[in-house]
């Protein structure tokens, strides 16, 4: 039997124990529906409030978070999440407005959404923005749907091929796959750019477009970006930008100016919306003129102009050839949009540029400090992240071992084994919210670990050592598939 460190809420349950209770009914009683429509039992836990609080407090202490320390998870942009955003998104006027209220009663929400659409357009150089998508992958799916709708509206039915570089996020091919498109993988060249020869060979009149992450997952800004975009457009394709790495580009370059037709934002990366242990995210999408009419519906617009005395009336508008609705209601308003709005309003143009400048400086600084110890396969000035190889000649230590050993030094590991084109990849994204001391301590730890790999490899193979939990038996989890728990069998009579 495995040792139970923290019982589940089902195991903590005790028959008859009460938590928060509700007031008695103040209306005359109505009989319940007929018995055959009622459930026979409700096998849910019974705990007191203090039991619940202590349970979740204990669980929280098993987590490592940005508030605990350095979290250089590549392509995830784990920057500090400002506390003021937690307060603004919980203002009663935002918390307690219903998504179907008449627009006259929610002008505050609609102004915020309208401004945010405008700001994101200005930051990215696009002409239209939808705030509806729930996350980055949802934004990608939105973008790919618009690309398909664009070609269809022109009667261009033979376009079925999506070009995707080998350094792309896994969500890119999966998004194209959701529409049954065939994915053509384009290799990277020795400098980490799109291989132009391979791209030229793939460009023809069956191309829907290209999905490009730029900077890519090697942290490289494509040095031939204008040529890449021209080649895709010359064959009639559309250019999709994966905005996951936008933290490198604020005030540096606007994807719309470069010729991208569509891009999703990750408000939970670039604009400091917290990741929440897996979500919620928020994935607005920006488009160029060509795709403006295909945006999801509805968008926020001005439905009645104002004048000097009366502000305009904000409401909802439907693009002419809209692909339709991507989710119920209006996107991740409270958790995503209000936090991102607060964050952008506190930065302004110079503040946004500084974010990217320092995100890039921090990555280059770490790369410079690690260069002599770890192999950097694509070694040039990087953007907000870079990829090192987590292995050493003549050693059986792997990237995974290095990642786990970093936990013993109180750091969250970098992304490992991604991108797939780098052997034993360690993908490191420090973000702009780390100071020099932290970066130095992290570099020192990685250098020390490289020494340990030679002198005491078993220390790495068995790491982590000081965390509350050790390495997991993942095979057992997949084989036994225990995906939920229940109240104990003899629950009613046990206590």
């Amino acid at each position: 039997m495995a040792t139970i460190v923290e019982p589940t809420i089902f195991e903590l349950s005790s028959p008859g124990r009460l938590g928060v209770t509700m007031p008695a009914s103040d209306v005359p009683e109505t009989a319940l529906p007929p018995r055959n429509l009622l459930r026979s039992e409700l096998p849910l836990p019974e705990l007191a409030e203090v039991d619940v609080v202590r349970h979740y407090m204990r669980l929280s202490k098993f987590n490592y978070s940005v508030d605990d320390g350095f979290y250089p998870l590549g392509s995830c942009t784990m920057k500090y999440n400002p506390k003021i955003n937690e307060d603004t998104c919980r203002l009663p006027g935002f918390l307690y407005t219903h998504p179907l209220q008449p627009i006259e009663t929610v002008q505050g929400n609609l102004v915020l959404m309208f401004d945010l659409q405008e700001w994101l357009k200005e930051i990215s150089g696009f002409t239209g923005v939808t705030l509806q998508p729930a996350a980055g992958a949802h934004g990608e799916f939105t973008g790919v749907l618009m690309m398909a709708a664009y070609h269809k509206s022109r009667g261009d039915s033979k376009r079925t091929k999506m070009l995707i570089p080998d350094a792309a996020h896994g969500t890119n091919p999966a998004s194209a796959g959701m529409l049954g498109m065939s994915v053509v993988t384009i290799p990277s060249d020795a400098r980490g750019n799109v291989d132009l020869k391979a791209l030229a060979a793939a460009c023809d009149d069956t191309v829907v477009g290209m999905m490009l992450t730029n900077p890519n997952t090697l942290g490289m800004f494509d040095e031939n970006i204008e040529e890449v975009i021209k080649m895709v457009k010359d064959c009639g394709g559309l250019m999709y930008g994966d905005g996951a790495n936008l933290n490198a580009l604020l005030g540096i370059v606007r994807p719309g100016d470069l010729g991208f037709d569509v891009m999703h934002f990750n408000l939970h990366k670039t604009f400091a919306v917290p990741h929440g242990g897996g979500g919620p995210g928020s994935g607005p999408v920006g488009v160029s003129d060509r795709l403006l009419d295909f945006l999801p519906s509805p968008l926020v617009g001005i439905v009645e102009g104002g004048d000097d005395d009366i502000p305009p009336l904000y409401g909802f508008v439907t693009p002419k050839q809209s692909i339709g609705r991507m989710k119920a209601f209006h996107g991740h308003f409270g958790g995503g949009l209000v936090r991102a709005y607060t964050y952008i309003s506190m930065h302004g143009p110079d503040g946004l540029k500084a974010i990217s400048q320092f995100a890039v400086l921090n990555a280059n600084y770490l790369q410079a400090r690690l260069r002599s110890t770890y192999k950097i396969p694509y070694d040039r000035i990087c953007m907000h992240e870079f990829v090192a190889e987590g292995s050493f000649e003549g050693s059986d230590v792997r990237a995974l071992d290095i990642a786990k050993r970093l936990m013993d030094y109180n750091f969250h590991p970098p992304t490992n084994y991604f991108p797939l084109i780098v052997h034993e990849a360690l993908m490191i994204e420090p973000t702009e919210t780390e100071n020099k001391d932290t970066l130095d301590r992290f570099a020192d730890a990685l250098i020390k670990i490289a020494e340990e790999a030679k002198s005491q490899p078993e220390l790495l193979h068995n790491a982590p050592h000081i965390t509350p939990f050790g390495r997991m038996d993942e095979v057992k989890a997949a084989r036994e598939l225990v995906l939920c728990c229940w109240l104990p069998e003899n629950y009613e009579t046990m206590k």
Partner: protein
Amino acid sequence: MTYIPISPNERDAMLNTVGVKSLDDLFDAIPQKHRFPELDLPPALTEMEAAALLNDMATTNENVREHLISFLGAGAYNHYIPAVVDHMLRRGEFYSAYTPYQPEISQGTLQAIFEYQSLMTNLTGMDVSNASHYDGATATAEAVNLAFAQFRGKRKKIVMSPTVHPQYREVVRTYSQGMGLEEAGDDATADLEVGPEALMSLVDESTMLVVVQYPDFFGRIHDYTKLIEDAHTKGALVCVVANPTALLMLKTPADMGADIVVGEAQPFGIPLWYGGPYLGFFTTKKSYVHKMAGRLIGETVDNRGQRAYVLTLTSREQHIKRERATSNICSNQGLLALASAVYMSTLGKTGLQQVANLCYQKAHYAASELSKIDGFGLCFTEPFFHEFVLCCPKPASEVNDYLLDHGILGGYDLGNDYPALKNHILMAFTEMNSKQEIDTLIEVLKEME
């Protein structure tokens, strides 16, 4: 305001280590003519100024706690959220962590989501639950993807009841536009009085999925047992879109034989928040687990012999399977799954049953009083849970405007979606509606001319 913790001296030392003279030198790879655009954005605010600005915007709204008495539901519900829920959500350890890819230092998130999965399976009666989906509408669309994958594209028809939430039906249409599906039943002009079995006339051997809502969009409680049995004889799967509050009282979709049960768990501890983020739940039978989209947490042990939890069956997911993945979903609603788990734990079995009973009682009191007013009546006769369709003597939009003038947020104007229901309002009631509020509604409507 800046959150960059680097002094000018440190910056210069770092630039020196990198081997460049200035920050701008780091960006030589960017095409020069597009480098460093001037962004036309408002100047930066301090925290104090931003707090004031956002407070101004928020107070421009009329909200359902301070300004309006609300009877609006239609997929988003005003429920009481125990204080504990937000206190736990505000733990930085939970909200500022990423997806638990490193299980040794993510057991808090992993165990909490495993417990969430368990709460949802116990609530719906199904075998497995994923770690969450974006919302009820997208979870419904993913049910279509599951069915499509289950039949390997050989069955191409979905039959969707017109009494599924209109926005959910819209999202299913958006999601499936590239799949070449035949869609039947999704017709707002259909006869809405007929029972669910009428859908069977549309179900045939090419049908992969039947989608119904429980209680349906009009609040009606149908027992879908017969429909599901009949659909199964044609080989089709059945997805039930369920309201979790109603499931606290009503027969489970699993007991009716449902293959997939999805829905919107916003009523469980998530504020109205002008529509999001909410929490899509997705539960199904164990036999479909490999076709289910989204993350899954499974139980295992660590190398110290301790019980622990990990992300499992990841081979279904996009980062492994790429274009052959069951879905492209990556981020989900992790923190809100935690919110709903804390909500369910804090209220517990008893508190939750009280919530369901109060919703039911308030709605039935209101229904009985409203139908006594001249010109008003209940549109349908079937049993209902906490929503019902009120038939009005004039267009719903006029009634709602009149109510709003009296500080009352009326119900949902069904004429928006159903041409035959121009004079009909979908009214919703929860434990938040006191008898006094309901009596105010009655008095105001009695005086309507």
